[in-house]
């Protein structure tokens, strides 16, 4: 089978340019997708002439120097983010420790359930907690007045309220990050301390804590950065009290009349710069500070017998799940079946009218349909694109792969609302008439979810031994044949997971959609917010549940299809 000399030399010239050309094209395409809107955002922030003029009449830094007037908004943002981060990290640390290091009953099940708050989303949480604890009609405050109290006991429409709702959501993110560090710690390090005579407390303070500290710090920075760019909870809870953070202020400036684009852009650029710094710090902590606790070996984490403390620990876990998942979901379900949520419970107040309204309104129906369609398209295109990009970055050894990776992770440092703002400008002047159509939303979704997809798929790619592909090559398989017979089948679980995540994230997207959707291309999440503010609480609740239901049904179908595909491929 050895190639003859003439054949070998003739073929040698054709080697690589195919894949190389493709990767240069795709890498360049991704760069345009990511950087093009950012360029417009920066351009808009430097516009100091007529704020409505496109392109800007004059350039300068006045918009940035003028941000001093909005110092209170910056203060609000930092306050909300800081409080929520502290809360979320405490939740994450306590849960992480309880669930990975103690013999609390039902650990395995609880660990699975800890992902639930993430799927409840900040928007759902905000809607539910507004119903529970708004100062006027909130259940808790009504109960308080019913018992003879004056005014209200709690007010969710404050920085504390927003931080509370966000912390419940981010708590599960912090748990995943901190729990992973605690699990990957070699228990023999603690055992060594105990063998040398240190007690349990001393071991905890001198060994365990320092070892997990970088992980905790990393989680804190990550959550804080996410919080700075968060939008939906601040919108739902802050707007009624005129309490603004940077993202909601930006939204307000863009949607009011006359819009103040340059100021909003300057805010966006500043926020983006800060978040970029945070992500950079996060990466430094993660890469430099984890010592060697994560050695790649699989440890069985040492489980501590905490005796009768098990039950209080269990109660802590259940309490978190209650306030983060059960209570919000029950509240939304309850509200969706009510004529008037604020009224005292009674059979006469029960109704299906909200669902009937939601399903009969063309606007809602088409928004739901559009969202599902977009979810399907985003997930499918995203998985293909990101799968290919991941392969390029982690496998092809293409020069510049690191740069492509950095580019693709870039949207992570940009709040989706800020990104959408850049896209709005970018595509408004683009010669293709896609502004105000679903196409623009599709492009936006694919772009902002690049980091999410890349993280999911790269996790799987990196676990696949490179030799599995190399051995196919040594068997004589060409690039395409290897991809089809070895690489793709091995990646399948990762691709399916990425598809699901992209689908869910797209259907529930708010920050980018609210700016980019046109009157004829509405999607469901902004529609829910709209009906919350302008129609009724109950209708919004019904719509939120319909959205969740639609996602669930789509997922069940997808799972069934995927399982068939995986089984079929495995034989």
């Amino acid at each position, binding site marked *: *089978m*050895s*190639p*003859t*000399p003439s054949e*070998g*030399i003739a*073929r*040698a010239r054709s*080697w*690589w340019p195919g894949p190389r050309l493709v990767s240069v094209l795709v890498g360049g395409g991704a760069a345009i997708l990511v950087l093009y809107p950012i360029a417009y955002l920066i351009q808009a922030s430097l516009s100091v002439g007529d704020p409505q003029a496109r392109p800007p009449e004059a350039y300068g830094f006045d918009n940035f120097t003028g941000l001093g007037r909005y110092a209170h908004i910056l203060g609000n943002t930092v306050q909300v983010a800081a409080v929520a981060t502290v809360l979320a990290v405490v939740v994450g640390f306590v849960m992480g420790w309880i669930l990975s290091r103690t013999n609390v009953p039902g650990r395995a099940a609880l660990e699975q359930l800890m992902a639930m708050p993430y799927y409840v989303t900040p928007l759902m949480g905000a809607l539910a907690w507004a119903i529970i604890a708004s100062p006027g009609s909130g259940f808790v405050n009504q109960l308080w007045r019913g018992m003879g109290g004056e005014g209200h006991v709690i007010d969710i429409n404050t920085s504390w309220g927003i931080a509370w709702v966000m912390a419940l959501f981010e708590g599960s993110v912090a748990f995943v990050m901190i729990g992973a560090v605690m699990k990957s710690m070699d228990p023999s390090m603690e055992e060594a301390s105990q063998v040398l005579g240190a007690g349990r407390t001393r071991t905890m303070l001198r060994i365990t804590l320092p070892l997990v500290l970088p992980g905790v710090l990393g989680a804190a920075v990550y959550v804080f950065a996410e919080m700075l760019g968060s939008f939906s909870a601040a919108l739902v809870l802050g707007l009624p009290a005129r309490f603004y953070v940077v993202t909601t202020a930006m939204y307000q400036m863009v949607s009011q009349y006359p819009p103040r684009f340059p100021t909003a852009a300057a805010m966006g650029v500043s926020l983006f710069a800060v978040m970029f710094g945070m992500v950079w710090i996060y990466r430094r902590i993660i890469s430099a500070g984890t010592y060697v606790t994560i050695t790649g070996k699989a440890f069985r984490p040492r489980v501590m017998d905490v005796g009768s403390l098990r039950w209080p620990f269990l109660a802590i876990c259940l309490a978190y799940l209650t306030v983060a998942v059960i209570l919000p979901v029950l509240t939304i379900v309850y509200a969706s079946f009510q004529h008037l949520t604020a009224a005292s419970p009674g059979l006469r107040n029960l109704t299906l009218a909200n669902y009937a309204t939601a399903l009969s309104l063309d606007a809602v129906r088409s928004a739901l349909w559009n969202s599902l369609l977009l979810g399907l398209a985003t997930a499918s295109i995203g998985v293909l694109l990101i799968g290919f990009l991941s392969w390029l970055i982690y496998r092809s050894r293409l020069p510049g792969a690191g740069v492509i990776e950095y580019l693709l992770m870039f949207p992570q440092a940009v709040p989706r609302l800020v990104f959408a703002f850049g896209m709005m400008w970018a595509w408004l002047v683009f010669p293709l008439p896609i502004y105000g159509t679903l196409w623009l939303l599709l492009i936006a979704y694919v772009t902002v979810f690049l980091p999410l997809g890349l993280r999911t798929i790269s996790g799987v790619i990196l676990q696949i*031994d490179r*030799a*599995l592909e*190399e*051995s*196919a*090559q*040594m*068997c*004589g*398989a*060409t690039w395409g*044949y290897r991809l089809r*017979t*070895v690489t793709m*089948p*091995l990646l399948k679980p990762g691709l399916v997971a990425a598809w699901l995540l992209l689908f869910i994230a797209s259907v529930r997207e708010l920050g980018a959609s609210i700016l980019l959707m046109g009157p004829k291309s509405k999607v469901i999440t902004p529609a829910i917010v709209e009906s919350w503010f302008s129609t009724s609480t109950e209708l919004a609740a019904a719509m939120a549940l319909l959205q969740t239901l639609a996602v669930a049904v789509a997922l069940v179908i997808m799972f069934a299809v995927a399982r068939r595909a995986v089984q079929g*491929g*495995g034989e």
Partner: protein
Amino acid sequence: MDQASIEVRDLVVRYGAVPAVRGVSFTVGAGEHLTLLGPSGCGKTTTLRAIAGLERPASGEIRIGGSPVFSSSPRVNIPAERRGLSMVFQSYAIWPHMSVFDNVAYGLRVRKRPEAEVTSRVREALDLVQLGDFAARSASKLSGGQQQRVALARAFVFSPSVLLFDEPLSNLDAKLRAEMRVELKELQRRLAITSVYVTHDLEEALAISDRVIVMRDGVIEQVGTPGDIYDRPRNTFVADFVGSANLIRGRRRPDLESAGLVVLETPGGALVHGTAPGRPTGSEALMAVRTVRLRLDRARPAASVNAWTGRVRQRVFQGDFTQYHVDWEGRTLIVRSAAAEALAEGDEVYVSVDPRYCVVLED
């Protein structure tokens, strides 16, 4: 089956700016079994991967069967899949999503062989590695040794012109490794394919090769038959790496030399007769003597040269042999003896060695 020779000339491979292989040249004859031996980081695996086409060299030339598969000038770089080679990987690289049969059949299907031929050749290959009954088994449900055999069968089933082995036995436990070593040698003999084998394990290298190349820091230290490498190391690195040796330094005594022998006088005044196979020697020289080649006797041996007295300082029983630390000429000699009769610590003994096994080193 096809056999192809391999020629590697002035091969340089860099990882970024770091050179992993720094100008290596050697040839492998058609049907020959060559082993690249060396510690980790010596460039042996990189050299193998460059031959395979999985690493792109910075410069040099590689020819397989006479035709260039890589050359820096004129520029040639044939991709791995078109070099007609095959390789067994350290991690086996068995595809977990395929059955044993499909794993082995892969190379044949790539070559679009008719399915009847695929079936018969896969069966044949699986029988050869004693996995005939495992064809339908999912590859993820095999033990390490079985995966190793599947990897072997997959590598030779399509009659490659050259087989490359990248530390194929290093993930097996010691007992299995010893068994597989014998099996591999038997397989090599039956297939008669040109092979290049990479390992850091001396016994493996000695057992299965026609010739061994010892590498260090990206360059070749010595090329030779297993016997050459073992008994006639070229320098201290090879002597050290290729099993244990005693190093003896001394002053040349040309006045006493005869019959091609070299004579050294140690600082303590003992005379050591040895050989210097084609090596330049100065007035001072260093000799290597394998620990197993030294003999310990209670009675004076018959030999006229290389017989001295010493005292057993320490005895370490190691099962297959006993290691003695013997005080000799103000220093310690290490002697490994398989003799059943044990010497006691403190015993006065005669130490002797055949001059053939006392080899002058180049450094």
